[in-house]
């Protein structure tokens, strides 16, 4: 190691300050090429390929390494990812700190030029170095840069240099690669019409100034799913008013894309608008219809009080672009290389891409990345990244919905798997330390049929003093997942197991989830037990937490357990235990409801899958038995007990779950809907809500109560994980509990793993580690968990939606009874109880004369011609799969009853007008 000179730097911090720093230049950084005698094994980390594969470039026939400059690497990273083609990229830029390639900033040279020069020097060094290495194999380093001046200089200095485009074009073996290049070349944009559509984005420095002085507001841009011309911006910060700003019209959206961090300027009050309730999709193919769109969206006149703060985007602070899944809409012009790409996510604008393989990509799901959005272009420019497969294929669609919802679903890496226990696994003496042996107890588990990741088991027995001992035993996952290792990090990243209709994306590797941690019957398993002593009134006398070893005596399904409880002639240990549990659960539930816990409802469906083809063959709404609520009741009790314990022990960094009370305005829709049926719903407290929901019955309309509960569910806030030190409102509204956490499903939720660790420390069964007692780290974990949780839910719904489509594809066209859930300005949202399916019936059609629609916001009701629709009205709809738009296959619903001339369709028509009204399956976005 050789030490070199120090360098001086002047900075301004208030006054002039002289900073002296030393810099050590190293001579022990290897070149990274294996078998390089000069460097020996000095290089650590990723190594270069010993013999670069020949990508058959016509400009450089001999084997070579590529050395891209920083800009190329940043912009083309997506294309570089593809294995095989770019794998020969020099794996690491030679560090500027190395002795031979150190470059001093010259007088009058800016930092960028210096970097460019440093990379050139590195390229030169590599070429000389590799020549020394072996005379016979002519390895060469090719310098890739898009900067013209940089390239000229490089060639001057004798370094073979090409622009990215030149090089990729020369790769004769992979002609499709050229599509993947991010189009940054200026020539591409000159072809565009010179007309400038958008106003310029302000530079970052100006934005920051504006934000500081309060003229601009910073926030997250959220495009609307339903109207592509509308978006909201969530303002960062605690400022209560102007929390949400509405943006309307393409010009005001000003090229912001969903999830970007933007700066907005508030418009004067006279220009404020109300959120429009029109559902609008971007279907236009040409670029000229911008003006027209602007007009249509202006015409909505609304009452004063509906007006919300309105603004316009003045600049982008941070782009949050990612690769998007979607489909290609092939251009009408033959031989055209420019096509529009329509993302699956409705909130993302369409993207213009250039490709020569449009015909092969048609009807495929593809991934596209955005490269930029010039001012004169209606759509952003992007490039093709990856082909996922045929539309409608189950694998492709599953992949798409996993990608779209950002669910990590790659197989577990070797590093992760290396932390799994070695098989065959058995309980050792060491495991028994701090653990109670509960193998003698008569424990059983009750789960849905086909469940392989059993994380909870129960027991109940009578004690000598007449009291009851009830135990909840939870799989001891934290015993296997030790803090900080790769396995822990991966499961923390995944956050939750995602259950799709035919697939499960595990949070932990299968060995744990379905074997070692699963509390299967007749095997010894490690558990974390929560044991209460209760009297026969289900009052808790004593609570004990302990790590344990259990041996479950039976794995039952809900139905089996119910059968045992009900049948009079079964009196074995398990059955008596179940009966005791059931009795206590009923008392607990009653008490909970008295306290004001809500019983809500959501239409859940289950598919019966064909065991061979995995196609859905039947659809059924979930059945609820007494035993379901029995298990649920004890899980709630365990969660609450644990929450109390860990909060007592760690008041600053307990991981808890809260469910905030919704603001009263959320209930408006429910109250209004109920009033239209002459029912009153009180919403001042959870208890009065629960009670008024119980009373809201109609003898002529038995399903009304369920509908009200479904509607009430929509009014709720999302329950979230949080760290107790960062918040002071712990209340769980839905469960009417002052404190709550998740403890009972550590196999499928990471939050539970953390709670297990906290509890283990609290009872002295395990030791703590630094991250566990760092509330900021814990808050970060919570943030990720909340995000993953939400995404998992969306993915689940999307999976159900897709399978519903498959189901109706095989089933053909059916007519079903449905109830109106919401009334919109130009549509009604209906629920079909039989399938638990929700859909939108539109009344406005593009190419037909619009019927007369009168929308009353107060009731709310929608009058079409002479028929009035209210919430909860019973209608009959026809359901079919609309495959006319390959882009989004969707369930189409059209009105059958009541009959409105020109709107509803006769019951027996067979020739459907498939290009007619656009119907879409609503995602249940809450």
């Amino acid at each position, binding site marked *: *190691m050789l030490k070199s000179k120090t360098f001086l730097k002047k900075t301004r911090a208030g006054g002039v300050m002289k900073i*002296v*720093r030393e810099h050590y230049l190293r001579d022990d950084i290897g070149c990274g090429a294996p078998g390089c005698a000069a460097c020996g094994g000095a290089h650590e980390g990723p190594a270069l390929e010993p013999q670069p594969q020949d990508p058959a470039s016509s400009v450089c026939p001999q084997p070579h390494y590529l050395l891209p400059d920083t800009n190329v690497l940043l912009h083309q990273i997506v294309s570089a990812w593809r294995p095989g083609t770019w794998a020969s990229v020099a794996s690491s830029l030679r560090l500027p*700190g190395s002795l031979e390639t150190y470059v001093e900033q010259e007088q009058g040279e800016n930092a960028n030029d210096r970097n460019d020069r440093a990379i050139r020097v590195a390229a030169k060094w590599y070429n000389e170095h590799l020549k020394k290495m072996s005379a016979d194999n002519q390895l060469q380093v090719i310098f890739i840069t898009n900067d013209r001046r940089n390239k000229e200089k490089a060639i001057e200095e004798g370094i073979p240099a090409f622009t990215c485009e030149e090089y990729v074009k020369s790769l004769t073996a992979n002609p499709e690669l050229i599509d993947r290049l991010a189009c940054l070349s200026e020539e591409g944009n000159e072809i565009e019409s010179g007309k400038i559509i958008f106003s310029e984005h302000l530079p970052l420095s100006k934005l920051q100034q504006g934000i500081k002085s309060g003229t601009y507001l910073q926030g997250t841009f959220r495009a609307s799913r339903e109207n592509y011309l509308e978006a909201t911006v969530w303002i960062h910060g605690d400022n209560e008013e102007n929390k949400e700003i509405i943006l309307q019209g393409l010009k005001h959206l000003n090229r912001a894309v969903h999830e970007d961090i933007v700066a907005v300027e508030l418009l004067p009050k006279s220009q404020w608008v109300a959120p429009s309730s029109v559902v609008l999709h971007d279907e236009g193919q040409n670029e000229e219809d911008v003006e027209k769109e602007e007009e249509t969206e202006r015409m909505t006149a609304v009452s004063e009080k509906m007006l919300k703060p309105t603004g316009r985007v003045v600049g982008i602070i941070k782009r949050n672009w990612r690769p998007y899944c979607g489909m290609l809409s092939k251009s009408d012009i033959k031989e055209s290389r420019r096509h529009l790409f329509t993302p699956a996510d409705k909130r993302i604008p369409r993207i213009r891409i250039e490709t020569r393989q449009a015909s092969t990509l048609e009807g495929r799901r593809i991934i596209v990345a955005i490269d930029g959005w010039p001012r004169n272009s209606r759509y952003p420019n992007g490039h093709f990244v990856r082909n996922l497969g045929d539309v409608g294929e189950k694998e492709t669609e599953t992949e798409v919905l996993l990608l779209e919802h950002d669910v990590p679903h790659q197989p577990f890496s070797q590093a992760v798997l290396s932390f799994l226990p070695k098989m065959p696994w058995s309980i050792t003496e060491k495991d028994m330390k701090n653990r109670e042996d509960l193998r003698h107890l008569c424990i059983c588990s009750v789960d849905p049929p086909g469940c392989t990741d059993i994380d909870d088991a129960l027991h109940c027995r009578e004690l000598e003093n007449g009291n009851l001992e009830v135990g909840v035993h939870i799989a001891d996952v934290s015993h296997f997942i030790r803090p900080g290792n790769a396995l822990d990090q991966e499961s923390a990243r995944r956050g939750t197991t995602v259950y799709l209709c035919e697939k499960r994306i595990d949070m932990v590797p299968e060995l744990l989830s379905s074997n070692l941690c699963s509390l299967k019957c007749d095997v010894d398993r490690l558990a974390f037990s929560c044991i209460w002593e209760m009297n026969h009134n289900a009052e808790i006398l004593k609570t004990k937490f302990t790590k344990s070893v259990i041996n479950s005596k039976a794995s039952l399904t809900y139905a089996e357990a119910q059968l045992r409880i009900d049948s009079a002639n079964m009196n074995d240990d398990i059955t008596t235990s179940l009966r005791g549990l059931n009795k206590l659960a009923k008392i607990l539930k009653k008490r909970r409801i008295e306290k004001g816990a809500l019983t809500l409802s959501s239409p859940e469906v289950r598919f019966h899958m064909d065991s061979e083809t995995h196609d859905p063959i039947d659809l059924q709404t979930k059945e609820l038995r007494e035993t379901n609520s029995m298990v649920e009741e004890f899980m709630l009790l365990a969660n609450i007990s644990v929450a109390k314990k860990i909060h007592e022990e760690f008041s600053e960094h307990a991981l808890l779950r809260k469910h905030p009370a919704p603001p009263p305005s959320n209930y408006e829709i429910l109250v209004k809907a109920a009033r239209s049926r002459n029912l009153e719903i009180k919403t001042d407290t959870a208890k009065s809500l629960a009670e008024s929901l119980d009373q809201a019955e109609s003898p002529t309309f038995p399903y009304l109560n369920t509908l009200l509960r479904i509607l009430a569910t929509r009014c709720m806030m999302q329950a979230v994980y949080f760290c107790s030190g960062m918040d002071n409102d712990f209340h769980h509204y839905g469960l009417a509990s002052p404190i709550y956490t998740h403890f009972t499903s550590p196999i499928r939720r990471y939050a539970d793993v953390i709670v297990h660790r906290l509890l283990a420390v609290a009872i002295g069964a395990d030791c703590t*580690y*630094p991250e566990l007692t760092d509330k900021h780290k814990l808050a970060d974990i919570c943030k990720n968990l909340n995000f993953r949780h939400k995404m998992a839910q969306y993915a689940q719904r999307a999976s159900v939606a897709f399978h519903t489509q498959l189901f109706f594809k095989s089933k053909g066209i059916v007519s079903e009874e449905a109830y109106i859930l919401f009334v919109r300005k130009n549509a009604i949202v209906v629920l079909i109880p039989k399938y638990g399916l929700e859909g939108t019936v539109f009344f406005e059609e593009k190419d037909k004369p619009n019927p007369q629609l009168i929308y009353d916001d107060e009731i709310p009701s929608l009058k079409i011609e002479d028929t009035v629709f209210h919430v909860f009205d019973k209608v009959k709809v026809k359901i079919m799969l609309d495959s006319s738009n390959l882009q989004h296959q969707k369930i189409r619903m059209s009105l059958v009853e009541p009959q409105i001339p020109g709107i509803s369709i006769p019951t027996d028509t067979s020739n459907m007008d498939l290009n007619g009204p656009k119907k879409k399956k609503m995602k249940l976005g809450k």
Partner: protein
Amino acid sequence: MAGLELLSDQGYRVDGRRAGELRKIQARMGVFAQADGSAYIEQGNTKALAVVYGPHEIRGSRARALPDRALVNCQYSSATFSTGERKRRPHGDRKSCEMGLQLRQTFEAAILTQLHPRSQIDIYVLQADGGTYAACVNAATLAVLDAGIPMRDFVCACSAGFVDGTALADLSHVEEAAGGPQLALALLPASGQIALLEMDARLHEDHLERVLEAAAQAARDVHTLLDRVVRQHVREASILLGD
């Protein structure tokens, strides 16, 4: 210092060192003829000068004399030009007093004070920039050796910090300013005894072991260097004496 990457993905620090590497150390003994012992040390950009007077009769109040051992008197002052912003007073502020006290504790532990009852040993240190305590101790050790005062062992000091799960030895000023935990350790390398250990930031106890080990290893490295300097000095001195 937001966004400053103290440890790169490749494992290099801002100034190009690896986690366990020391800054370059250069030292000389016997720089002043006037004093009984003196030494000058450079650890990277930190430069310290130590002088030792004594053992000699107690100066000033006789009451301070200790009946069974020598009194060690330490004074620390840093040059006004030693930091980025010019200091007002070279010594007498709280930081200097504290440093003096720490040096005194360190050397009371190392010097065989019982050999010189009722006498006084003065160590004066002057320093400049980053890793100050360690440089002062190392300089003072050399100066005490130069003065020929018997010690149990060398006292070698080094600082260590903790960034992203890695312990860093011998912090530079930039690394100190970033605000992570910083540990100062003075070690008697032969016996492995700790003369002084100081840390004033929060660090989880699980990490302490590792940081301590990093500091101790660095201190042992310092010892080999100091040992070399002393031997070199002795050789030169004996040549001058015409041996």
